[in-house]
Each structure stands twice: as C-alpha cells, then as structure tokens.
C-alpha cells in the first residue's frame, strides 16, 4: 500500500530538475591562461576531473533521473567550489599554489577521482602512469608560479 504514494513521489520529483552545469563560453580564465597544459595532461583532466571541476559536465542519459540528478548536482557544486579548472586563472597566486598542492595530495592519497564517481565512470580511473604525469605536471606548474 505504501508503494503507491512512493511511486507518486518518485514520479513527481522527476519534474524538478536542477540547472545543468554547461557553459557555451570559452574558458578564458581557465588553467591554460596561466600555464602550458600539455595535450596528454589535458586529456586526463578532461576525462577524469572536468565533470565536477569545470564549467562543463558531460551528462549521460541516466543523469536526468531523480534523485540521482540532485545527488550529481550536489557533487558538481561542491567540486567546483573546491576547484574549477575553468576559473583557475582568476584565483590568487596563493590559492593556485594551494590547489596544485591539493591535486598532488589527492592523487597520492587516491581520494580523487571520487570512488563513487569511478563506480559509474570506469573509463575515468587513473592508471599509475596517469597519476605520475599529473603529479609531475602539477609540480612543474607550482615551481613556475612561485618564481
């Protein structure tokens, strides 16, 4: 008997969708505006990080289903607040250095990409060599910026 009202609720919430994280604008103040981003690095970032840490998320078909849609929107909001590669050029030098250090730390601890993200996006998982490429690139940028 309780399933019918639940069904109605589930149906009703499908009509309440959060705004999508998509921007047609060029990321003028993105990370590429303050440093060189090699192609291989860009490919890894785009594939494994940008869904939560940029102004453009790739939405699969099932992303429209509630309540996952809300859950995703919450992750994206938090991720962007924490680090947004498309706005990186706007950060103060200090914040840029802190974020690059945090990227290295997260890769080292394997806390990023989020395990829950990797469950659904198996293609986004980082091989050891991917991690090494990113960590070394971050180190180079840190040295470059601190001069």
């Amino acid at each position, binding site marked *: 008997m309780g399933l019918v009202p639940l069904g109605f609720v589930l149906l009703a919430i499908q009509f309440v969708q959060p705004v999508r994280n998509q921007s047609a604008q060029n990321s003028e103040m993105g990370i590429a505006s303050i440093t060189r981003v090699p192609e291989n690095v860009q490919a890894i970032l785009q594939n494994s990080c940008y869904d939560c840490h940029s102004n453009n998320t790739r939405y699969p078909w099932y992303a429209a289903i509630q309540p996952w849609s809300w859950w995703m929107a919450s992750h994206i909001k938090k991720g962007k607040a924490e680090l947004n590669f498309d706005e990186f050029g706007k950060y*103060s030098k*200090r*914040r840029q*250095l*802190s974020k690059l*250090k*945090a990227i290295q*730390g997260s890769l080292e*601890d394997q806390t990023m990409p989020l395990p829950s993200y990797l469950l659904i996006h198996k293609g986004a998982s980082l091989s050891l060599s991917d991690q090494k490429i990113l960590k070394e690139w971050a180190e180079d940028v840190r040295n470059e910026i601190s001069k």
Partner: protein
Amino acid sequence: MPLALLYQPVLQTLRLIFIKIDTSKPYQNMKTIILSLVTISVLLTACNSATDKKLANSNQTKTETTDQNISVSKYPMTEVIDGYLKLKNALTKDNDKDAAAAATELIKAFESLDKKLLNPEQTKALADIEEDAREHAEHIASNSGNIVHQREHFETLSQEIYELAKSGSGQKLYYTNCPMYNNNKGGNWLSETKEVSNPYLGQAMLSCGTVKEELN
C-alpha cells in the same frame, strides 16, 4: 499625636487591599498596620539594593571591556596567532578532533579581527594571506578523522601565519623546521616555545626539529 490622625486613613487603605480589619479590635489592627508598613519598607529597601548591585555590576563590565580594548589594540592579531598555536598543539598530540575544533576557532578569530586596528604592513600581509589561510583552516576543521590531510593543509597554513606574524604580531614566536616530514621535503611551523614539539610527526617523533628563526 499626629500618628493617631493617620490611624483611620491607613485602616481604610488596608481595608481597600482586602486585609481583614475588625474595627472592634484596635490592638489587632495596630499589629496589622505595623506589619504591613514593615513589609513594604523591607521590599522597597530590597529593590533599591538590587538596583544598586546592577549599577555596580554594569560599571564593572564597562571597565573590563575598556581594558580588553586596550590589550587587543596593542596586538590585534593575538587571537589569530593563539588560534593557530592551539591547532599546532593539537597536532603535536595527534589529536585530530581537537585540531578540527581549533581550526574552527581560528576561522572565528579571523572573522572577529578588527582590521581598523592594523598598521599598513599588517593590513597588507593579512589581505595577502587571509582568503587562503581560511580555506586551509576550513579543510582542517572538516577533516576530523584524517590527520594526514589536516597536516597537509597545516603546512601551507603555517607558512601563511608566519608571513602574517612577520608583519608584526607582538609575541615571541619560534619558526621551527622538521626536515623529515613529507618524504624529507620538510615542513615548518610556528611555536610559542623554544622547546621543539613536532606537529607533523606528533608523538612518533615529538622532538624532531630545529628552530630556524625567532620572531620578536
């Protein structure tokens, strides 16, 4: 003689306030009158002394606040530095919960810092580090249970608080280095004591470190 004149009016007043008055018993009535007058005068005296006490207390508080204002304006960053030192001490004891709590206090100290009290050098230093320092403090505050992550943020925070302290903190501080932390890349911190208590390695190697610089 004049008191006798008051007898009837007082009696009538007492009747008005429903106190049992039997006019055939003047002795009883006198007792009631005296008792009522005594009660009223006691109440009035009590009220007065209570008001006096309140006035005395508020005067005291005023003096206390003024004294506080004087000490804060000498060293406006004291609360921020003290908040940082509390966090540092929690990490020396490997206490992630206390570290998180101290970080929350540090954020509050930043918020309540009266920027008008800072000199130009201090203002510049604060403007430079405040945003990032607060972000590190926020991370430490929300990572109770992950002391490794707290220490990562503590490292950059220490650098920033050091720069702030250099601009004029008023208290004696020791900038100390641990060469072993972070795969021998090393890490620095500010201490209120010359004696080394390592916040990066904690109880595992508490005395590891050397004082590099004395501030103030």
